[in-house]
């Protein structure tokens, strides 16, 4: 081992390889999936609020399982296998599912109303996606920011409030998918 500047060059080479590894884009298929799920679910809250609960009860866990499957296959296609990383993502977003389930139980027990439940779920989404942006993939922070900004909007606006917030959240997911694809095309990962 040479204790001289070439050793530092070698470490710079290793760092560049690690930087390329860290810049892997978020799977576009998962972002598009959730843009669709959120787009439909939020609009449904304005046009058929009675069926929103059933929609999310099916779409959220199904979307979660489909995301796990897509994430695994995206990793394999990209040449990476990492159970620990997959588990980290699954536990992070599984926490959101669990928190929303607890909120639904609170509604059933009369803790707060069904219409308030939407704002609480949006708040939980905002926090979980913002933390995902901090700890997992930076692009997801925008989904969190727009979800959090949507909380006062759904409480204060009179008409089409969920459609408006849903459009912004879905657009944030599509932006995640688009920036990921562009980075891949540019050779980022």
């Amino acid at each position, binding site marked *: *081992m040479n*204790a001289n500047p070439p050793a530092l060059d070698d470490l710079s*080479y290793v760092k560049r*390889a*690690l930087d*390329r590894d860290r810049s892997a884009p978020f799977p576009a298929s998962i972002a598009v999936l959730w843009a669709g799920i959120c787009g439909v679910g939020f609009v449904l809250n304005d046009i058929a609020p009675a069926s929103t609960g059933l929609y999310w009860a099916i779409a959220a866990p199904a979307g979660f399982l489909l995301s796990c499957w897509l994430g695994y296959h995206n990793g394999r296609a990209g040449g990476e296998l990492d159970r620990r990383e997959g588990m980290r993502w699954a536990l992070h977003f599984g926490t959101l599912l669990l928190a929303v389930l607890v909120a639904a139980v609170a509604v059933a027990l009369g803790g707060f109303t069904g219409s308030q439940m939407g704002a609480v779920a949006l708040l939980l989404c905002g926090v979980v996606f913002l933390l995902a942006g901090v700890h997992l993939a930076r692009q997801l922070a925008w989904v969190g920011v727009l979800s959090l900004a949507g909380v006062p909007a759904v409480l204060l606006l009179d008409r089409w409030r969920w459609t408006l917030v849903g459009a912004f959240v879905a657009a944030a997911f599509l932006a995640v998918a688009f920036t990921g694809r562009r980075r891949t095309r540019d050779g980022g990962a």
Partner: protein
Amino acid sequence: MAARDDDREVAAAAAAGDRLLEHRVRLAICVLLARRDALSFSRLKQLTGETDGSLGAHLKRLEDAGYARVVKEFRDRKPVSWYSLTGAGRRALEKHVRALERVLAGLP
């Protein structure tokens, strides 16, 4: 006198490093493999920026030393080689990184 002692410490730390991991490509491969369960040959090529021949030669040396293992499979009728770090490879990397830290701490 103190400077000579420092030099001696740096030289001792350098000697404690792993000879095989002194090469930057092999060091980068081991660091990348330590972060994942397995990486494919093409992904390692993307991350290191090496040619097929160079990367293949370095991986072969790591395999021969028992630091890396390879599992080959077919995906869409194309062969895919998955590389992972062995226990011996992980221990060697940890020892080498500790030696590197001592070397860098001893640099002016």
